[in-house]
């Protein structure tokens, strides 16, 4: 009994974010329901599943962009904090400004003074290998450069958790590598990473644990190797085997 209590307490300490009975409904349709997961602090959790499984919706609920219709999301047991997290979207949203002005904006929102903003922006430019393009309009960058800027802009917010919604889905391998390097470097500094991906290769390279969704429900979750190599759910087995299936098949 005592051991069970101890384990439970350790789980609580190790979890930075917990979702309980999480669900979302819109237009009279339940799009996500009954999700119970713990996001481990300092780890890289990947969210996988077919199109329409509810991955991006789940990520938005975790980040607090959408209020849940059912259940709760708790941050260290509390409501999600506003500024200790950041998100990178599938299609990066570039402000109509220069590259460096995009970074300065994110830093200004954090309430930093001019000197700190300049220093932070320069550091982020170097980290994203965009120093040469500092003065260029952000919208003129290539897709890969825009996504690098989006990741760097998210990281200057000094987040405890970094959410990424398929950040490399339309990028070539070289650009994907650069994004993964940025994310891994952030993870090495202690940032918790929660990322949606379709890519099994990426999941193997980057995932510590995997959450697999199917038709708006949690199909399974667990350590990366377990979910990728020995999936228990039919949906995850079909996905990993590369079989074609629809949301109504399982």
């Amino acid at each position: 009994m005592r051991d069970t209590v101890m384990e439970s307490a350790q789980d609580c300490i190790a979890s930075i974010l917990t979702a309980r009975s999480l669900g979302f409904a819109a237009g009279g349709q339940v799009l996500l329901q009954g999700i119970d997961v713990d996001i481990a602090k300092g780890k890289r959790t990947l969210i996988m599943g077919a199109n329409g499984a509810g991955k991006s919706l789940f990520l938005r609920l975790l980040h607090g962009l959408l209020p849940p219709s059912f259940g709760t999301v708790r941050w260290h047991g509390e409501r999600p904090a506003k500024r200790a997290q950041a998100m990178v979207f599938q299609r990066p949203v570039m402000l109509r400004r220069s590259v460096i002005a995009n970074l300065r904006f994110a830093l200004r929102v954090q309430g930093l003074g001019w000197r700190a903003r300049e220093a932070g922006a320069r550091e982020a430019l170097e980290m994203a290998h965009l120093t040469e393009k500092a003065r260029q309009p952000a919208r003129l960058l290539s897709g890969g450069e825009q996504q690098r800027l989006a990741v760097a802009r998210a990281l200057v917010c000094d987040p405890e958790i970094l959410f990424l919604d398929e950040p490399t889905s339309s990028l070539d391998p070289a650009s994907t590598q650069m994004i993964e390097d940025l994310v891994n470097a952030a993870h090495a500094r202690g940032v918790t990473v929660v990322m949606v991906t379709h890519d099994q290769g990426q999941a193997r390279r980057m995932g510590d644990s995997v959450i697999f969704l199917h038709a708006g429900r949690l199909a399974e979750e667990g350590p990366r190797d377990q979910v990728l190599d020995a999936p228990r759910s039919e949906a995850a087995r079909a996905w990993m085997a590369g079989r074609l299936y629809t949301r109504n098949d399982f």
Partner: protein
Amino acid sequence: MAEAFGLILRWDRELSVIVMLSLQVTLSAVALACLIGLPLGALVGAFRFPGRGVITVLLNALMGLPPVVVGLFVYLMLSAAGPLGVLGLLYTPTAMIIAQTILVTPIIAALTKQVVEDLHGEYAEQFASFGVTARTRVAALLWDARYSLLTVALAGFGRAVAEVGAVLIVGGNINHVTRVMTTTIALETSKGNLQLALALGVLLLGLAVVVNAGVMALRVSAVRAAYA
């Protein structure tokens, strides 16, 4: 026609007084309308709140305000018997600026609302993710839409500079005091003095073309820089 161009080329003193007063009144009214209309339009465009639909309908409806009605309203307010009569503003350029500001503000606000709403559609999730405050959100949207908003200001300028009814009622078309290009054209045409009327008409057109060309050049440079 030749005499009209002669008046322009000689830059007749009377002509210059009229042109300068027109510019003073119009630019002041547009500046005031921008001060009110830009933030108002941005607030309506960027936020959802009860009554937003009503404000939007009202702003759109007021874009077509009849100038003579505005002139009459301002006249009643500023006349000796009106609530603001004590200020003694009737038949002054200030009264004309007030009337034109009332005419132009809904245009600036309604068009700004549309521009900001479109841009906010792109930015909304990112702003929510950053956790930006309402003030920062409005400021950022106005700044990032600045080149589109130049066109909005231009639409307001076009409305104000070509307006005759309201300024005639509240200004009185007093020579060297409240006589502007449009009221002079109306007066001189009725008197049969077509040279001055034509000269002012040409100048009015020229002014509109120059201002439009200036804004267009600015927009083109902005598009080249991919900011627009």
